[in-house]
């Protein structure tokens, strides 16, 4: 401790405070610019990782919520067989303990869950739901289902009229096969009773799909104690009649069973028509991005170890799509996080280069003063400490502001992302200052010895080539790893940034060649201004840092801008792919007979330009090369008939190829031969696709029943209201509003804007660094008779190559970088089947190019105005500016 304070006091004694203050005051411009860069980039880099983590959790929850019942974890178990009687006569046994069995299954299932999965799931609800019945009275299509729900001691109901459904007979009883339909007693909800006008005691006129009548009596009218009880989620139609649940234009009524009437309900149906299911709904609020992987893994093990659904014993079968839902969303989230870090790396790289440029400008401006200080006896370490004090102070204040902002936004700061910028900002100033001081006091004369001179030149060239090769190798490695590993954190995420730096290095090599060539041509021309401008440009074209900083920021800005535009268009295309039209109506099997009628009704609405229908069958059994390829079969209605049943195919596994002969397997009917005649369009949500024409299929003896309607036209939305349609505009709105997509789009626009600003700042800094030399030369040219206006033109001529290199090189290299898009798997974000095609933001690119080109006259005007009041004599006297 004493050693440390001792050292500090030594330092304090030798630091020369007035020069520290004086230097800072003389160079407020570059210092403030650096501080601004540090503050802005710390804000972004400090906040985004936290935002991405929050967004990741939100996305996981969103996905679970959106998945709805398909994310439920369910347990199915067959009932104990009841096809026996106490006296051995043909018949079934009424089993009075069914509800207790179910409660037991529920309890056992809960015990089987591992703790992590149990924590992510809500308490189980056991349910028994009957097949759909139809009311035989009335012209409107009304359907009826009965359900028994058991979530422990929920859902609770209050009987407001009549009584809870009692047992039809008490205890066990033999039921002969040939007896009349067994009576079931149910309760109706208040709203169902009101809308159907049914009173307790009424018999419901219902039949099953084979036309067999059922004996269902209403015993009472109930009112739920808590309408929001999660148990109701499994059969919401028990509470209120549900429109369109069984197809467009249908209304489903529900009848509530009790533990007493459940055994009677079983007897009213065939032995295996009633299924008992225990449902665990995931609780989105407790699932996070971090726990998602574990939960998915547990769900997979659970499914793998459970009995298969076809087994005949009563062992429970576990089922869930939760693992798939979580896998999809975590895949999407990790891709998005990498995509975000790609953008952050880009911004940080741009910032580091600009900070280095600002520091080199400071070093240049101060080299005379620093050399003087050294001659007065100040040691290099002391000068370094003075400069470190200045840069450290500026950096810390700026970074603190940025981090405070990030903290306010996200409640945390991603320190590791802020660190590179802070380090670069703090270290670059002292480093360039010391280099300037050291080289100003060193004997700068080139060695007289010719071979010594050549050796110096060679080592410098070698060093530069080595650095370039290192960057090139790193960029290649990063790009290769990006293509091999996809959007993974680490090296792959650095690929675009490293590639941009490599492209800038290439341009840095090219620029002197081009300016040299231009100068060579102009020397033969008769335009003196162009010659002087080109000569100046040729001299400054080789300045590495300005070219690197400018071009890299421009390349990455173009990359970010194009990324944003591509994702934005991809979302639009993805929504179209998902829906297939402006709206799509999926009709359930029960109501597929109504498809044509509904389609005709919609087609008659104003503003509907096209309506098409088809039968879509997922998991159709297609046989190709004697292997089963479960495919999505699309039977298009309308079109020419063709006896060979041509089919369009698309296959992600490659098993379905045009030219193949295929077979469509059917239950209880001979298979149909198909000829794969062409390639099907991309269809969202299916990997193997077969499209056939309905008429051709009909000619081959297969009748189809369309179950899907696609609607297009400006009037689509109003035309399909109430038909349970999936609207493209809604899909698009939902996806755009999804936190992940929204966040990434925002980040790409913000990065693009920040990188353009960094590039413009870099341009100003680069121009400022060259300004003394430029205007000294211009003053000298003016003593030869150059007019002030022509002097400005020559200055413009000097700066234009940088601006053009930045604008043109930036856009071209940025465009080349979009080849990396395919490895970033943007489709995960846009909801498309294939990665989106690159979309060029022409307007944005034009604005970027225009900004860099327009910066030239602005900078020249500014420099000229700053020097306007000085007489040429004065300018020449002070050696220069």
């Amino acid at each position, binding site marked *: 401790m004493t050693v440390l304070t001792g050292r500090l006091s030594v330092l304090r004694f030798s630091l020369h405070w007035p020069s520290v203050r004086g230097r800072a005051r003389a160079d407020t411009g570059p210092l403030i610019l650096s501080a601004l860069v540090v503050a802005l980039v710390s804000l972004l880099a400090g906040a985004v990782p936290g935002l991405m983590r929050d967004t990741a959790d939100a996305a996981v929850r969103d996905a679970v919520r959106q998945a709805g019942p398909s994310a439920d974890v369910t347990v199915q178990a067959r009932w104990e067989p009841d096809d026996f009687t106490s006296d051995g006569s043909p018949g079934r046994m009424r089993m009075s303990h069914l509800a207790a069995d179910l409660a037991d299954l529920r309890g056992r299932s809960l015990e089987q869950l591992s703790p992590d999965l149990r924590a992510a799931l809500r308490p189980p609800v056991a349910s028994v739901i009957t097949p759909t019945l139809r009311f035989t009275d009335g012209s409107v299509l009304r359907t009826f289902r009965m359900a028994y729900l058991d979530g422990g001691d929920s859902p609770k109901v209050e009987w407001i009229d009549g009584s809870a459904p009692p047992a039809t007979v008490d205890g066990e009883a033999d039921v002969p096969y040939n007896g009349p339909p067994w009576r079931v007693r149910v309760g109706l909800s208040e709203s169902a009773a009101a809308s159907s006008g049914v009173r307790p005691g009424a018999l419901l006129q219902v039949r099953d799909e084979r036309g067999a009548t059922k004996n269902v009596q209403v015993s009472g009218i109930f009112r739920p104690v808590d309408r929001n009880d999660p148990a109701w989620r499994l059969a919401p139609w028990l509470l209120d009649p549900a429109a369109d649940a069984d197809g467009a234009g249908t209304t489903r009524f529900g009848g509530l069973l009790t533990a007493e009437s459940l055994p009677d309900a079983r007897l009213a149906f065939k032995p295996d028509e009633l299924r008992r299911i225990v449902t665990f709904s995931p609780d989105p609020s407790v699932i996070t991005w971090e726990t998602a992987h574990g939960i998915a893994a547990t769900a997979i093990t659970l499914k793998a170890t459970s009995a298969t659904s076809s087994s005949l014993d009563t062992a429970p079968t576990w089922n869930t799509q939760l693992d798939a839902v979580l896998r999809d969303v975590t895949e999407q989230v990790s891709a998005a996080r990498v995509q975000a870090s790609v953008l952050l790396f880009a911004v940080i790289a741009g910032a580091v280069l600009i900070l280095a440029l600002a520091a080199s400008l400071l070093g240049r401006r101060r080299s005379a003063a620093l050399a003087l200080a050294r001659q007065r006896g100040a040691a290099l370490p002391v000068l370094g400490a003075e400069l470190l004090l200045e840069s450290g102070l500026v950096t810390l204040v700026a970074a603190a502001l940025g981090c405070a902002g990030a903290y306010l936004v996200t409640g945390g700061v991603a320190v590791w992302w802020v660190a590179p910028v802070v380090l670069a900002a703090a270290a670059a100033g002292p480093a360039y200052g010391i280099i300037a001081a050291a080289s100003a006091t060193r004997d700068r004369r080139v060695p007289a010895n010719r071979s010594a001179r050549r050796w110096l030149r060679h080592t410098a060239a070698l060093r530069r080539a080595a650095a370039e090769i290192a960057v090139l190798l790193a960029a290649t490695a990063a790009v290769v790893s990006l293509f091999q590993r996809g959007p993974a954190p680490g090296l792959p995420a650095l690929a675009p940034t490293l590639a941009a730096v490599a492209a800038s290095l290439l341009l840095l090599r090219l620029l002197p060649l081009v300016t040299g060539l231009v100068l060579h041509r102009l020397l033969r021309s008769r335009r*003196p201004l162009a010659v002087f401008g080109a000569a100046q440009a040729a001299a400054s074209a080789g300045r590495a840092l300005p070219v690197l900083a400018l071009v890299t920021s421009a390349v990455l800005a173009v990359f970010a801008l194009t990324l944003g535009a591509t994702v934005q268009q991809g979302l639009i295309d993805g929504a179209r792919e998902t829906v297939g039209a402006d709206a799509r109506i999926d009709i359930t099997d029960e109501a597929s007979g109504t498809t044509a009628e509904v389609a005709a009704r919609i087609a008659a609405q104003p503003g509907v330009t096209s309506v098409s229908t088809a039968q879509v069958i997922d998991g159709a059994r297609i046989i190709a090369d004697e292997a089963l390829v479960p495919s999505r079969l699309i039977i298009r209605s309308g079109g020419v008939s063709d006896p060979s049943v041509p089919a369009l195919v698309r296959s992600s596994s490659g098993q379905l190829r045009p030219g193949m002969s295929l077979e469509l397997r059917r239950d209880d009917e001979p298979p149909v031969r198909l000829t794969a005649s062409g390639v099907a369009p991309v269809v969202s949500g299916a990997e193997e696709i077969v499209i056939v024409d309905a008429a051709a299929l009909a000619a081959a003896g297969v009748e189809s029943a369309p179950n899907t309607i696609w609607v297009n036209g400006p009037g689509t939305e109003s035309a399909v209201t109430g038909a349970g349609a999936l609207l493209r505009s809604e899909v698009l709105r939902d996806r755009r509003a999804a936190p992940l997509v929204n966040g990434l789009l925002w980040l790409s626009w913000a990065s693009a804007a920040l990188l353009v600003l960094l590039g413009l700042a870099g341009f100003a800094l680069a121009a400022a660094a060259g300004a003394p030399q430029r205007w000294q030369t211009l003053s000298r*040219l003016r*003593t*030869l*008779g150059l007019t002030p206006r022509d002097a400005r033109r020559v200055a413009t001529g000097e700066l234009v190559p940088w601006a053009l290199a930045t604008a043109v090189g930036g856009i071209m290299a940025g465009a080349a970088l979009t080849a990396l898009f395919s490895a970033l798997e943007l489709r995960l974000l846009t909801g498309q089947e294939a990665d989106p095609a690159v979309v060029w933001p022409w307007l944005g690119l034009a604005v970027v190019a225009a900004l860099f080109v327009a910066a030239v006259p602005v900078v020249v005007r500014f420099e000229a105005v700053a020097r306007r009041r000085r*007489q040429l004599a004065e300018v020449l*006297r002070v050696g220069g500016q």
Partner: protein
Amino acid sequence: MVRIRGVHRRFGQVHALRGVSFDVPAGSMVALVGRSGSGKTTLLNVVGGLDRPDEGTVEVDGAEVTGLDEDGLSRLRREKVSYVFQTFGLIPVLSAAENVGAPLRLARMPAADREKRVALLLDLVGLGEHARQRPGELSGGQQQRVAIARALASSPRLLIADEPTGQLDAETGRSVMALLRAVVESEQVTALVSTHDPVMMALADRVVRISDGQVSE
């Protein structure tokens, strides 16, 4: 050739020129001498139109320099007056030949003529071998010779040189001065040269002494 009448120049409190008047006859070489800070550079700048006097007039070849605007001054420098500076004032990014050719480019002389004249001038100052070298690759004396060649390129009427030998060693300085004297003869220009060097004074047709901003002869 040059008529200076009652020129005053003040820099804030400093009264650098206090009523300077004298003439420089055409074709002559006038040496301007005086202690450091006496106002030599200030006077030369005013004469050449690089600076403006607070009072008084300067005429060069019949044109009143003090009444010209920026464009007029640019034309004056292009056509009639050229300078040689103590610090040479060459353009670092151009070769020696291009430096000499720069005024000719500004005058839009055809390339063939220009190249011929540049070669001639470089030979005149003894640097025909060094035409392609840049100023940074030349010695101080060589740079000043290039500057003299450049000053002569556009065949000016008046050559203004401010301590042209100030940064050179005695030997080199003397040769540069001899060169200056020779070209004044051969190129028929009028020269106004400030110097501390007695040798230069000896070479001049006339010596004007200046002290404290006044001609003291």
